[in-house]
């Protein structure tokens, strides 16, 4: 295994994150927007794991048995948990809306404004 600057991971993550944001901005389909948000969460996950590794390795040099970095990977785990819960509720909302207006186009959501 070779040297891999943390910046690469950061840039990758930021790029994914940005793509997610652009997706949220450009799409009108609520489900796709939601998927883009999931993409953003995954970008975070990548970054967390990368940082976890980085910190672990920094500590590893001093102490072979270190558990530094575990917390970030567990954080990723919790993010996934939460994402799953969010998806449950989110899709329920989308389905509910679809039942009422037969569309998931967010541009139709403009009864509430000003």
């Amino acid at each position, binding site marked *: 295994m070779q040297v891999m600057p943390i910046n690469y991971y950061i840039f990758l993550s930021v790029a994914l994150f940005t793509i997610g944001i652009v997706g949220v901005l450009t799409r009108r389909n609520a489900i796709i927007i939601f998927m883009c948000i999931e993409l953003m969460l995954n970008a975070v996950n990548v970054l967390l794991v990368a940082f976890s590794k980085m910190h672990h390795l920094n500590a590893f040099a001093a102490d072979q048995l270190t558990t530094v970095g575990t917390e970030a990977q567990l954080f990723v785990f919790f993010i996934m948990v939460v994402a799953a819960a*969010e998806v449950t509720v989110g899709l329920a*909302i*989308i389905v509910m809306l679809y039942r009422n*207006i037969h569309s998931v186009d967010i541009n139709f959501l403009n009864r509430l404004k000003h």
Partner: protein
Amino acid sequence: MNSILVSVLWGILLMYAGFLTKNKRSISVLAVVGAVAVLSANALEYMGLSFFDIDTKGMLFYNPYSYIFLVVIHASLLLYFLLSGTEVEETAATPSDHYALIFFVASGISIIAGFKSLLMLFLGIEIISIPLYVLAGSDKSNLKSNEAALKYFLMGAFSTGLMLMGIAFLYGDSGTFYLEGINMGATEMSPLKAIGGVLILASMAFKVSAAPFHFWTPDVYDGSPTVFTSFMATIVKSAAFFAFIKLFEGAFGKIQGQWQVLLAVITALTLIVGNITAVFQQSVKRMLSYSSIAQAGFMVMGIFAMNLMAKQGLVLYFAAYSVASIAIFAVLAKLKDHSVDAFNGFAKAHPLVAAVVLICLLSLAGVPLTAGFFAKYYMLVAVLKNGTMYWLPVLAIVCAAVSVYYYFRVIQAMYFKETEAGSVAEIQFSSSFKVIMVVCALLIIGLGIHPDWLMDLL
């Protein structure tokens, strides 16, 4: 810890209560009992009686400040249940489920009252947010409610993404999720920490509906069933603020000067947007939504200053703001029409309730001898004490003056205008409702005359 446990258990209990009884009233009573239970559980822990003792690995830690905050929250919750119980029953198909969700939210609030780790913050905020998405959309056949739910959900999820990214950067910088760990280190912010800070700031601003991340607020508050708007705009918002200040004090307290400009900008924008836009509103409900933004502007000032004065004052602000808003929303929920004109002649038809609403509005406007005055007062002192950016309090009071304009429109409608068709007279207020309203008024006036009753506890 007690309150987390009790509220979760009570949530589960209510969840099952729906199977046991179809009597909505008894479910409400159960919820009220639950609120009392949570309140007393928290109070017991404050007095030193903890139901259980586990090692949280320092992820949760409660100090008196947290406990008093929770007391305020739980007391508000109790008032909320007492005043709005009937509305919950009417709005919700299955009130037991809704009450359960509210109790889950309460447990989330208890978590973020004591978080020391970003993980707990994240979990707490999610436990609060997810039931709220549901509550916002709980009037399922109402398209406005649907719309509110979806908007809230999409934007909430988006802001969660921002927060997580921020957390990731902070972790990358410091290698830990503990607040103390983040706060340690250089006094000069590294880019990682700066980016993390900004991202997490944005997401917290979103949660407390501070401009320019407030856009969801008016739509969601307006669209949600009034009874849940009340809950969201008061108790939940207070909790979000508590998390906000706890996070920024814990994680960035040492480098306060380096992010204060951002908060000043946020404060100014929030004050201006909230107040100026509220002036235009014709619907009281939507006006209150904007007013909640405006009030958030004042609370952000506390975070901007972040000294002892600010921390104490914020809790007072929560109490003042929550009690007043809950009472007004409770009345609003009983009115079919939410326009300002719907309040015409209200004072003549219901003098007592009108008087309480009057006191609440005065408190929101920050008129002395109400709790709202001292709340705002503490914020101003905190900012002035901070010693920089004197334009901020000046802007704040100008905005407070503007706020008088829209709050007093309701007062004018209630007291100085005649009703057209006797629509307000048809509304019935039960005597228990009136009693609770009077309690609200007394709380507001009591805290307005002698805020030390609360402040001494902090």
